[in-house]
């Protein structure tokens, strides 16, 4: 169904949204959070998504992460029409291509960091030894060696965020989606996380799409997409003149 071979065709973007809308609720209570969003992201990019609160950033991330479905429009992942896939196909897409870092971490409570991180590998059916090695490597990458057997309640916010990132990257995803990964952290921790994401993008070739409302964080990205009121307001590259 989905082949990484598609990446070799330069013409095919990694992801592409065409006139995507999302309406929450129905009738008089209906609210259109996305009003026709179109943009494309090439493999290897590091994109920051910005915009005021309520502008639809999380909504578009959830759609890109296949956690939610658009009301109308097209979503192409490596040329594949995601909006036509069924639940299980979307789950497999998440399993094999996507890593998602949630704003609220969403780690399993009372579960060690190691077990949290190896969970996606378990669903991939990986054998124990390999699973443990990979989970450890991912924790090493986020600087959490020595904390493998701590549960979320025993970790600081920044450490929990790093566990969440380790869980998202342990499968070596094609696309990493992070919704305000530094939202709950102080500047120093935020810089650490940004360095981590930059490293993943540069050294591991993972395409990163990150929501943030801090311009300082967005500076690390190679491109910034600005949302206002459910529409793309501006789309600037770092080598262009900054706004």
């Amino acid at each position: 169904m989905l082949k990484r071979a598609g990446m070799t065709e330069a013409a095919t973007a990694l992801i592409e949204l065409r006139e995507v809308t999302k309406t929450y609720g129905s009738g008089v209570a209906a609210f259109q959070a996305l009003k026709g969003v179109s943009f494309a992201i090439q493999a290897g990019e590091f994109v920051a998504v910005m915009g005021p609160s309520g502008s639809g950033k999380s909504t578009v991330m959830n759609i890109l992460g296949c956690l939610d479905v658009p009301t109308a429009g097209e979503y192409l992942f490596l040329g594949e029409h995601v909006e036509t896939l069924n639940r299980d196909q979307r789950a497999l897409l998440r399993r094999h291509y996507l890593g998602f870092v949630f704003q609220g971490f969403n780690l399993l409570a009372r579960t060690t960091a190691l077990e949290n991180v190896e969970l996606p590998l378990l669903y991939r059916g990986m054998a124990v030894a390999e699973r443990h090695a990979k989970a450890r490597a991912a924790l090493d990458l986020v600087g959490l060696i020595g904390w493998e057997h701590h549960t979320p309640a025993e970790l600081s916010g920044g450490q929990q965020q790093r566990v969440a990132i380790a869980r998202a990257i342990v499968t070596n995803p094609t696309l990493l989606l992070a919704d305000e990964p530094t939202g709950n952290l102080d500047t120093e921790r935020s810089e650490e996380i940004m360095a981590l994401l930059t490293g993943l993008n540069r050294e591991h070739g993972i395409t990163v799409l990150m929501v943030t409302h801090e311009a300082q964080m967005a500076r690390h990205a190679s491109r910034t997409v600005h949302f206002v009121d459910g529409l793309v307001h501006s789309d600037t590259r770092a080598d262009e003149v900054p706004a």
Partner: protein
Amino acid sequence: MMFWNALLLAIREIRRNLMRASLTVLGIVIGVAAVITMVTLGNGATEMITAQVSSLGSNLVIVRPGQRMTPGQPAGWAPAFKEDDVGAILEGVNGVRAVAPVASRGSTVSYMTESVFTPVTGTSPAYQEVGNWKLAEGRFFYDSEQRAGRAVCVLGQTVKKSLFSNTSPLGEKIRFRGISCEVVGVLLSKGQSAMGQDQDDIILLPLKAYQRRVAGRRSRQDVGTLMISVRDDVRTDKVVKDVTALMRERRSLAPNESDNFSVFDTKQIAETLSSTTRILTALLGAVAAVSLLVGGIGIMNIMLVSVTERTREIGTRLAIGALENEVLLQFLVEAVALSSFGGLLGILLALLASAGLAAAMGLPLVLDLQIVLLAFCVSASIGVLFGFVPARRAARLDPIEALRHE
């Protein structure tokens, strides 16, 4: 592969939520154990009563002076029976196999330095057949001894044990009410009667000897009870009717006078008693079913309280790429594992409790496999239902909805 994964995930889920898991198991254990134990004890009681009533003799009709509607209600004065009533019934009523006259008086009985207080009963050799007694050793007294009024006696096990402990009493002389009486036989034990009396607390001697030497001066000719054994091929209610008619005639009762004696039929007693215990068993079963329900509601509560947390977790699992079926399998395995573990533990507990209580209460252990299975299935399905259904609802949501669940 998928199954082993689900098993591993289920084990981790149980380990993480040890409290929830143990409460679920506890709910099931209580339900299963209560139902099985109560029904087992109820069945044991029914069986014991049935056995005791049949030990009385299967087709037995008992005639007593006075009208006694219920046990405990005092009998108004009524003339006692006489020994010739026995012959009259044997001749006058069809289908009678044997009739034994019975007269009893509590007496202190002694042998050497031992003594006990026990009812001493005068009767005829027909008593053995009527009462369905077997001998442990020796013999019953003969008709000739009855006619001659010889001082020979047969002991019940309780009396034998108190006076002679383990030695054989045959040929020994015991003393009561100033007479000395030779022991010729010992009865086999019958245990407690349906009314809770010790049937082995008994000494039998010929009625003639009893009337002459044990009975008080005033009641010398009296016979307290007539016990009639009915032939198997004859309906006891017919015999009851004939005996009633005969006794009314012999006691010269006018048609407008009511009976001054009563006639029971053990079949009727047995039926009454076993229907009573059946009702009791049903009642116990109902009480147990309520505890099953309470256990079930407990499980439901635990599951409903944790439904938000579980829904979010399922959302997380779905978000990182779990298929709906994988999540379902995991929770199904968890629910089935907990429920069947609880069920087995409950059965084990029930076996121990029933065995212990049955022994303490002197009841036979009557295990009903159907009840064991039923209790197990009902509580296991409660566990599976409440463990699995909320998980299934969550697994069918879009991941984002499950994550947002409040």
